[in-house]
């Protein structure tokens, strides 16, 4: 059974549809969510994260339909989320911030210390655990955001633009972390950086104007690429080819 399943999902802002009849499912592994600006990636991530409720359609996460308050709480307990705009409290240290989210996510008290330490170590901030957030660089803050997302050992992890602000070395480390997290869990990564998807994801979904354009493996996306279209890498060519073909038909 897929961890995330959506059937005919629709959502709009002020009458303008952003997601239109989207039917998708995600299972164990790392899923890259691609699409141009305004495609609805962040809106979709916010719905998966239980921030927004769909206007119509069904959304089931970890077997719980996101309708009732009970269903939401049940899902949130097993969910990790890094929003596109990551807000933080500058006076908190890394450890305090992650610990605070462990409390918010109702991590059992006896596990808090070990889970917080592990989350901080996994994002490579073990040596900065007692530094205040206001002293960290943008890339480090992003890693703190990932640490709070994984502190409850989530079964579904939603990362919206997680590599924004990371330097190349940090991105390489992050890909390793993604692959590690995706071994047993469902990780959905929304990104503009197509090479991250090719390097770290087991599956890729391309959406445009709130509709699904492509769902398959990175290799299938690469294989769809036409050498005549622009793009520096095979995956970029695959992305552009599929997107243009879709737009030509709609």
């Amino acid at each position, binding site marked *: 059974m897929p961890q995330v399943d959506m059937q005919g999902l629709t959502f709009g802002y002020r009458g303008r549809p952003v997601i239109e009849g989207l039917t998708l499912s995600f299972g164990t592994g790392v899923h890259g969510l691609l699409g141009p600006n305004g495609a609805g990636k962040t809106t979709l991530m916010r719905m998966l994260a239980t921030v927004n409720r769909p206007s119509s359609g069904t959304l089931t996460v970890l077997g719980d339909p996101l309708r009732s308050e009970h269903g939401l709480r049940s899902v949130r307990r097993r969910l990790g*989320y890094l929003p596109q705009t*990551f807000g933080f409290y500058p006076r908190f240290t890394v450890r*305090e911030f992650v610990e605070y989210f462990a409390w918010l996510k109702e991590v059992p008290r006896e596990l808090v210390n070990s889970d917080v330490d592990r989350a901080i170590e996994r994002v490579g901030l073990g040596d900065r655990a007692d530094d205040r957030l206001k002293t960290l660089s943008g890339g480090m803050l992003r890693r703190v955001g990932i640490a709070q997302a994984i502190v409850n050992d989530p079964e579904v992890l939603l990362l919206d633009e997680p590599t924004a602000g990371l330097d190349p070395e940090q991105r390489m480390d992050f890909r390793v972390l993604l692959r590690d997290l995706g071994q047993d869990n469902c990780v959905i990564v929304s990104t503009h950086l197509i090479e991250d998807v090719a390097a770290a994801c087991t599956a890729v979904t391309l959406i445009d104007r709130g509709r699904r354009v492509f769902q398959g493996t990175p290799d299938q996306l690469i294989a769809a690429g036409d050498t005549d279209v622009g793009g520096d890498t095979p995956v970029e060519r695959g992305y552009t080819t599929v997107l243009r073909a879709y737009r030509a038909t709609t």
Partner: protein
Amino acid sequence: MIRPLWTEYRRGAGIVLTPVVAVLSWAALFRTRMEWPGPWTTLAERVHGTLFFLAPLVVAVAAWQASRERRRGTRELLGTTTRVPWRRLGLTWASITLGATAGLLVPLVVGGVLVVWHGGYGGGNWWWSLLNSLLAIGFFAAFGMAFGAAVPSPLLGVTAGVTVYFLVATAETLVVGFATLFPFLPADVMLQFPEFRAGPQALLATWFVSATVALLALVSVRPKRRAAVPVGVAAVVAAIPLGDFEVIDERADDLVCQDRVCTVRAHAHLLDKAVAEAKPLLDKVSGIPGAPTSAMPDYAWQHLRVYDMVLDWYGERVRGEYPYHRLMVDSVVSGLECDGDVQREFGVPRMAAVVWWTGDRAALDEEPRAAGLVDRLLRLDVAAQREWFARYLSAIRRCDRSAVPEIP
């Protein structure tokens, strides 16, 4: 819960509030002269009084803290966590309440130690006042949070909270609910020796608790209709007439005496000092017709007056106070029944009587024209001095300046 609260306190506004509240309430309790704040009722009343300026401070800080999620852009992320929002907001509220309470506890604990040390009067159910003061801090933290969470602009939220506080606090006519909101404000009901009545004080405590819960529920509960129950409970509590929340403590007004010197029970700790001041004065006029033979706490010509004394931490009278012996004899040498013009006519002989009785020539600073009369009086033999004093007392009782004998 303890660790998140500790973090919230240390990294939020609570830790800033603690030293500020400590300094302000220290100044209010001990003044600049490091006064002893006892007895217990006085200490509790002073703590209560500090709320007038602590409350807007707590309101402002709580409003600012409540706007943090909006200022820092964490609302979306927090909305995806499991814990119900009121627990999160409750933590913020608790950190602000803790910050202010910790600050207030600094002078309060010091004051409590001093009161115990000097053995201050412990009646009057003083702890009710103290309890309600502490509950009021929590209430004002919730009051500020409601504004901070509801108003989109942080500074506007702070301003709105403080403004509404002052508007309500200084309003003349209030509905019952708001009258119970600021029960410490009306100065005209302040009694010298209050006894806090259990019923109204318990009702007041219930109001603070229910109003705090209602405000926090309004801020944090979704959907809002779920806040109807706590808001309804608070409204019912507010509608119950409070009645007199303090009455005169009759027991505190009982006399306690030693060597013909008496004071009220609430000031029993001053008795030794009052005796030390009164005894030489009574001995000096002993046997003189019309002279007092005792000292009492009320203002009357028949006896010396035992006043309250402002003591320092060591139980000594603070420096710079008006000389106590002059206060004590004032009711005896002044013509209480005489009109203003006659009293002015008595100015010189009255001061001579004061200086002769107390031996305090420094009193002449208040009436330098009396210096000559004092010198002539002191040149007389003791019997003649006592005779002059007796005739002075007789004259002042009759408001007859001409009956005061001249001394050539």
